[in-house]
């Protein structure tokens, strides 16, 4: 399994350190040529969303990444990454707009209002959550799963294969959220394999010979 990390600006190295710890391969995306490598999931890190939005356009990365997201590429956005995914942004403009939520930018105020808390993440137990000039989710559409709330605000959600947090799990040393993301990628790969087997059954091909690994390979080919 290979994860691409958008490395235009911000805390991308911290995500890489976490993935290294979990034994997942990853590489950085800084320019168009980097997209020629196959990958199974994408991380949009924390940083300044205005900067990333501008660089996505200037470096011609927006369109190819957008079409991958529309095809269902698993994606994980933290803080600024959440803002890039949100369909509606209060106090800013949407970017990819694939995640059916309204996110409020700089929702808690300036740096003096940054804080830590511990809350449950998706029923997996309480985890540390640093909020740094963070957004929160004002409203999530009905089919979006809420994974965490803090202070009566939604701060982590999942919609199909999109995961987003208003806080920074990459800064805490707690791998719960990253592990959840890796599981999500695996889940999609397995689902695609089932789908493929079914498809092949119809054509009376030998579906039984497909291993999960091969399923993953085929997923890659489809994506690229």
């Amino acid at each position, binding site marked *: 399994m290979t994860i691409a990390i958008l*490395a*235009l*600006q*911000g*805390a*991308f*190295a*911290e995500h890489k350190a976490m993935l290294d710890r979990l034994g997942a391969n990853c590489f950085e995306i*800084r*320019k168009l040529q980097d997209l020629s490598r196959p990958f199974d999931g994408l991380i949009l890190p*924390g*940083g*300044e969303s*205005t*900067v990333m939005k*501008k*660089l996505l356009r*200037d*470096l011609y990365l927006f369109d190819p990444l957008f079409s991958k997201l529309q095809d269902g590429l698993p994606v994980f956005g933290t*803080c*600024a990454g959440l803002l890039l995914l949100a369909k509606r942004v209060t*106090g*800013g403009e949407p970017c990819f707009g694939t995640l059916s939520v309204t996110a409020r*930018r*700089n929702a808690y*105020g*300036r*740096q*003096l209002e*940054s*804080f*830590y808390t511990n809350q449950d993440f998706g029923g997996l137990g309480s985890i540390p959550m*640093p909020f*740094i*000039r963070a957004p929160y989710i004002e409203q999530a559409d009905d089919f979006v799963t809420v994974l965490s709330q803090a202070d009566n605000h939604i701060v982590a959600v999942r919609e199909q294969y999109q995961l987003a947090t208003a806080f*920074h799990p990459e*800064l805490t040393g707690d791998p719960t959220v990253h592990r959840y993301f890796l599981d999500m990628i695996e889940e999609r790969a397995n689902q695609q394999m089932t789908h493929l087997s079914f498809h092949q059954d119809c054509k009376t091909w030998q579906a039984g010979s497909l291993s999960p690994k091969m399923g993953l390979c085929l997923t890659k080919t489809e994506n690229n």
Partner: protein
Amino acid sequence: MENNRSKLNRELAQMLKGGVIMDVTTPDQAEIAQEAGACAVMALERIPADIRAAGGVSRMSDPKMIQNIQAAVSIPVMAKVRIGHFVEAQILEAIGIDYIDESEVLTPADDVYHIDKTKFQAPFVCGARDLGEALRRIEEGASMIRTKGEPGTGDIVQAVRHMRALNSAIRRVRSMREDELFETAKQMGVSCSLLQSIQKNGRLPVVNFAAGGVATPADAALMMQLGAEGVFVGSGIFKSGNPGKRAAAIVQAVTNYKDSKLLAQLSDDLGEAMVGINEQEIHLLMAERGK
């Protein structure tokens, strides 16, 4: 709680990495900087080149002017205080500044003591010419370090010197025997525990940016290749012919600092760069302030 605050403040600096922080003097300039892709702006009354030209005592900017800039942009806003002037820092904290730069660009208010930055909720960035200075500022509570460079000159030589000095000192510390750290700590005037953490991690415990004299995309990429984690651009942008274009080019150069083809494109047709002054031509070395 106190510890949490300093951790959160270091983490904000982590979010700025790979970005460009631009000096601005008006809300209009702040908007140009934000649109060009600045990850933060430094609000100040006069840019260093003008401070240098005007002479006299240079102080913290008018809080009203800083607040107007805060209102104009959504990215973090930083502002400068004089070295040792903790009341100026209290004032900036009171208006909700995102980062305070205790800066040698302004006239020092104290020729012995720096601000005790551990007493503040707001984060501080400080300049350093070498590892000793950087660690002394970190012990005083700085949550981000930048090279001093020589502000307002458009001459990159001092920033290069400071970045090289700092990183080669880190490499030396890494190769030392543990019992040699005590003597080195004494020479540098820093605590041994901080040096031990440098030896273990091979890097400063806080983010380290380049500052002072950056005028072109090539300057910015040079500092990144020398190990900076991001870049401050002061006079280089708004003293040049086409500020918006130059600013955007420097932002891209910092992201793709190793891509020489892209750097070549980015350096095309940028208009006039700031004129600049060589370090030998200046009478006032700002980097000598605050050791």
